[in-house]
């Protein structure tokens, strides 16, 4: 990449990179179409579909009414008719009104059909906390992961957003693609990790975690915005002599237990950080999978840090208290590595 381009990327908002990924795939494959609220004329409330309507027209970029039940089910029919729909559920919280079509239809039909019917649908949605209270702040990836038949992706940097979006659109399975609102408000230069993005189309595989910072004392596994927070915390405690290996899981289904177990086996300590709810979710699942892999005596310490089973409060003072932010992560890392 030449310098001018590299500079453009630094100034480029993340949503523009996502729109670029979708456009490249739509150009490649005429069966891809997008449906969602405000995705056409407005280009998406965050701008992740900006420019697509002009380029691909009204049949392939459908501004939908607030009728999620209808258009998520519509995606199932489109898929059965040979199309590859991308459905945008503006905020993941709204999945409540159409979860039926996602988990009873899209997720189950491939299996119920004995593998005869494929469901190439991407449910693209924004999650995470930016101070928007209980009904507009959830992550919910644990919920989708619990329901068999759906792949679940939550990238943390511009490079992976582009590559995983391409991978999701090429997948024959339903994929829930969860963007984080805080990341959607950033430009390339605001990312601590992997802001560089090739211009051409490429894919990043689902189910392959990335070691984004090597370390020797504690393994910290997380995803989405929390990777940024984890890197910040790791840097803070590095100054105090604690070496943290940070792993970006990238997807929850499939979950890359190998990479986490390999790291945890060498550090002996595992911390899972999750912006989703604590109980019955990613942190428990990943921890247990690692223990199953390494045995009950394979680790010296296991900890998890997640939202303590409470709806996200409106007041920022309360939101901060329930979120696993950089300070809390650093504090937990100190506790863990304290008895080194």
């Amino acid at each position: 990449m030449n310098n001018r381009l590299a500079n453009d990327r630094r100034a480029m908002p993340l949503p523009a990179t996502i729109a670029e990924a979708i456009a490249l795939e739509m150009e490649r494959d005429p069966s891809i179409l997008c449906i969602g609220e405000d995705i056409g004329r407005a280009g998406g409330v965050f701008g992740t579909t900006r420019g697509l309507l002009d380029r691909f027209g009204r049949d392939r970029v459908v501004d939908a009414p607030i009728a999620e039940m209808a258009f998520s089910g519509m995606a199932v029919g489109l898929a059965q008719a040979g199309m590859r729909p991308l459905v945008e559920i503006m905020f993941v919280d709204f999945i409540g009104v159409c979860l039926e079509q996602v988990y009873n239809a899209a997720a189950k039909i491939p299996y119920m059909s004995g593998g005869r019917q494929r469901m190439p649908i991407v449910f693209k949605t924004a999650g995470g906390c930016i101070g928007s209270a209980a009904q507009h702040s959830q992550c919910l990836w644990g919920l989708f992961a619990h329901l068999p038949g759906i792949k679940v992706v939550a990238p943390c940097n511009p490079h992976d957003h582009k590559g995983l979006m391409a991978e999701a659109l090429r997948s024959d399975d339903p994929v829930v693609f969860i963007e984080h609102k805080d990341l959607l408000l950033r430009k390339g230069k605001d990312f601590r990790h992997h802001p560089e993005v090739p211009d051409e189309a490429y894919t990043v595989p689902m189910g392959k975690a990335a070691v984004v910072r090597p370390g020797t004392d504690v393994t910290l596994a997380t995803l989405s915005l929390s990777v940024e927070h984890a890197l910040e915390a790791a840097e803070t405690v590095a100054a105090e002599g604690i070496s943290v290996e940070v792993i970006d899981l990238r997807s929850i289904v499939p979950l890359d237990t190998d990479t986490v177990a390999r790291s945890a086996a060498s550090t002996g300590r595992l911390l899972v950080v999750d912006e989703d709810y604590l109980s019955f979710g990613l942190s428990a699942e990943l921890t247990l999978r690692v223990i199953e892999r390494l045995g009950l005596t394979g680790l010296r310490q296991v900890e998890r840090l997640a939202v303590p089973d409470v709806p996200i409060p409106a007041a920022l003072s309360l939101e901060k208290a329930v979120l696993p932010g950089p300070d809390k992560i650093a504090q937990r890392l100190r506790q863990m590595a304290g008895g080194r």
Partner: protein
Amino acid sequence: MIRANAEGNSGEPVTHARFRRMARMRAFDEACLDALRRGVIHGELHVGLGQEAVAAGMAESLRPEDAVVSSHRNHFHALAKGVDARALLAEICERETGLCRGRGGHMHPFDPATNFSATGIVGASLPVALGYAHAFGMQGGDAVAIGVTGDGGSHTGGFHESMVMAGARRLPLVALVENNALAISVPFSEISPTATVAERSSAYGALGLHVDGTDVDAVARVFAQAMDHARAGRGPVIVEATCHRFRGHFEGDPEGYRPREERRRLREQFDPLTLYRARLEAAGESPDVLDGILAAEKSGMKTLLAEVLEDEMPDPAGALDHVFTDNAGRPA
């Protein structure tokens, strides 16, 4: 001349009460904008500026036992239902003194005392209002449930399903559709199979009424008709009030979907306060009296905001309270 009920100043003529309600609502949302500019309110605040006549017209027909379930754009409906303005403003500013102790925030005010609630999920107000309506049917009496939604919400499954059930059971449900012609960027005219929402009422065995939502007198009249219908046990009603949203969908909306001049034109032509003022003055009302009402409401709201800003933010130690009645079930 008819005398006003709650929210107007007692004993004042109904015209003054209507003007005062609208002035109070406007002052309330202007106070919210002020708080936003001071960085007190964060997140995607939805104000109702331009839509005052709808809630103000509704207010007159509401009784304490009636229920209102509103949407993300809920401030005016809360005031119309008699929710305490200070507690509401404090909640929007996320104070411990707020209606919901700062847990709910601007999109989620809940006030069991006045039977008022809201939701941030579009279309989700109608099913909850349906529940109130069914309860009212069982409990005797003639209370009515009002579910408020925008035009966008009228396309949801929840709206349709609620109207089906209310129609079949002749429940006292009034669906108030504030049709401001836009759902964020999507124009009603491009997305609706019918020219109006009100005309869908016949499919539900409901009464359908359409009203100019910038005309407070007209709204008051039509809404009273709707409430009479529902109170008398004649089944649900759809009231569609057409109006205009003067600001972005939320504060910070870049509004790429409509030109600035369009917004200016709407403000100039369809401001419900200006329109009402012109009518009253043409009928001989003194401009000074109306100015007095505006000034009183504005300064009252300024004082309220100043007070609220002195209130404490919630203590982080209480972040896990209120999930369950007994706080059981918390992770260890």
